[in-house]
């Protein structure tokens, strides 16, 4: 099952190495990892998407990550309501004939064309990984020349629909 873990870490040389090292040392597979600054200076956010067989492995991963001295906080947000986004750039073969077809696919996905070449165009798409997967499947028949995905970055939504709050409503 796929889990999304977010970490806040001290932005210090070697910290990303320590995190990725831990995954390989403990034989965990990272599906994607993204890193970037946060609103606090000196603190970065890392989002890891991992595929694990069971809950005890994810528990171990979060505990091992938490143990790292530069890791400030680890949250497995898979169970929460979250905003998870990924960006992909796709270079697709296109002739004047197929261009409008491709355009028709792009629109419902709210993707956009960011570059047009003689025989290809570059599409930018953002969204949840599933959406990007689906889009890639649709665009594949036209011939993908190059593909770059950023991996998921995510955090929990501001308002969480908890079990408690639903219960409250039902009582009222």
């Amino acid at each position, binding site marked *: 099952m796929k889990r999304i873990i977010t970490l806040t870490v001290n932005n210090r040389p070697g910290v990303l190495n320590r995190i990725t090292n831990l995954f390989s040392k403990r034989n965990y597979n990272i599906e994607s990892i993204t890193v970037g600054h946060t609103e606090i200076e000196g603190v970065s956010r890392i989002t890891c998407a991992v595929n694990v067989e069971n809950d*005890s492995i994810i528990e171990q991963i979060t505990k091992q990550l938490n143990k790292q001295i530069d890791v400030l906080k680890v949250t497995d947000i898979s169970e929460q309501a979250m905003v998870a986004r990924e960006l992909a750039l796709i270079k697709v073969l296109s002739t004047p004939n197929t261009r409008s077809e491709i355009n028709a696919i792009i629109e419902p996905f709210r993707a956009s064309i960011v570059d047009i070449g003689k025989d290809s165009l570059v599409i930018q798409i953002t969204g949840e990984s599933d959406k990007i997967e689906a889009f890639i499947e649709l665009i594949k028949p036209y011939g993908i020349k190059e593909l770059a995905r950023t991996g998921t970055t995510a955090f929990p939504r501001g308002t969480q629909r908890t079990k408690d709050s639903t219960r409250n409503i039902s009582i009222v």
Partner: protein
Amino acid sequence: MLQETAFTDMKAESKQQLSGSELLLQALEREQVEVIFGYPGGAVLPIYDKIYDSKILHVLPRHEQGGIHAAEGYARITGKPGVVIVTSGPGATNIVTGLTDAMIDSLPLVVFTGQVATGVIGTDAFQEADILGITTPITKYNYQVRNIEEIPYIVKEAFYIASSGRPGPVLIDIPKDIATGLAEMPEDKEIELPGYQPTTKPNYLQIRKLTEAVSRAKKPVILAGAGILHADAAEELKVYAEQQRIPVVHTLLGLGGFPAEHKLFLGMGGMHGCYTANMALYETDLLINIGARFDDRLTGNLAHFAPYATVAHIDIDPAEIGKNVPTEIPVVADAKEALKQLIAQEGKPPAHEEWLQTLESWQQEYPYVYEKNNSQLKPQKVMEMLYEKTNGNAIVVTDVGQHQMWAAQYYKFSKANRWVTSGGLGTMGFGLPASIGASLADKNACVLAVLGDGGFQMSTQELAVIREFNLPIKIVILNNGSLGMVRQWQELFYEERYSHSKNPVQPSFVKLAEAYDIKGYVIQTEEEAEAVLSEVLNNREPVLLDFRIDPGENVYPMIAPGKGLNEMVGVKL
């Protein structure tokens, strides 16, 4: 006194420029470092120039690996971080095994490595190695100093990280220009580590839950690991075990945490543990693990480990709880704090008379046994004699292999911190240098360095240090002319195909010792052993004893790989 003066001087001339090396040495003095195990080289020359003037004892091992194992021995006996300084490149890579060993056995070390100058890092300069990259997975934390004025704070933080929480090795990489460059002494800064806040106080509800579980238990047992020793909790363990009358099993590394002659002590558990200890772990209905990490050499096949037990686990490292064995009562805490609270609960002791009787009958029925044979010297007999002749008061340091298991089985430790062995990593070559560190940690103690002929030859060069400091180390080589544990496994699991486990050519260990001006004896019989031991154990001189033991002797009992704790072989003769 001297340190205080140095400190006031510094304050008076706060604008004085100090070199990185001076800042480093001052920081080490502030941490009250007594001994540095170090080996000089190009990148650490500026640091060594300051060591030349320092009051701190410097010990020069004859190989960097010997230096770090010595530091581990020192750390194991004192509980304080062992300090190592080595040069860049090969100096640094030679300590990689020691770091890994310290990491897995939770020993506090602060290791300084030289590095090429900042400007040439990354250019494959002479004696450059990416030691931060290499040591990331085998250190609790590592640093590369980028600014000279950071040195005092980094050293302070490194000592704190190494010795707090679950102890471990910390490495500080110092580029040569940082060691030579000048800076003002910075203001002292409080340690601030928001991402590192070890939980030492146990959760009260879990302590209640455990107390209630103990009251209900019919077959409780405590499994005590090295966490007891790291937390200085031997006394609390004894009080708690006696209060509740719970029998105690030790892991290999925990030995000494509970007095071996105590009536509640069942012995060591695990692959070569004793029958009663292993059967207690198998049959128990309440397993209280205090400071052990359920290593595979202890548990055997997990499917057959403690199948009937409710498992409680007290550990300072939350990641150890539930890692290998599902745990019903997790207690994240320092062992001493947790035991104090358990004692204070004064819970109703379990009604487990029958269990205690069963255990006692097993102990009578299945003690450690070996075949007594007059024609060959038995290693077990040697260990028994060593125990008797030192009254159990020696510090015992071992290498890795059969001799290590015999020492663990037959030397009965009555006190904590008298036992130094490489457990998790199983590092051959560890014993001799570790005995040097142990001896420097307790200068009055008789230190037995129990080694095999294989492991001894991995670090023979350290004999020079023993001579140089005239350390009272009794080197006991249980010489079977083979890599005994490998040979035993080949005998049992590889159809007696002894691939490269028998040493065809052995040097004369006695002559080798003599080359270092250390007296040596070859001992072939019990009578010779009796005579020589009586003589050499009564003085403070180093000595090498080459015991020619039965080359075919195996370590029993044994749990074969993949088997459960209840499937021991070699329990009876």
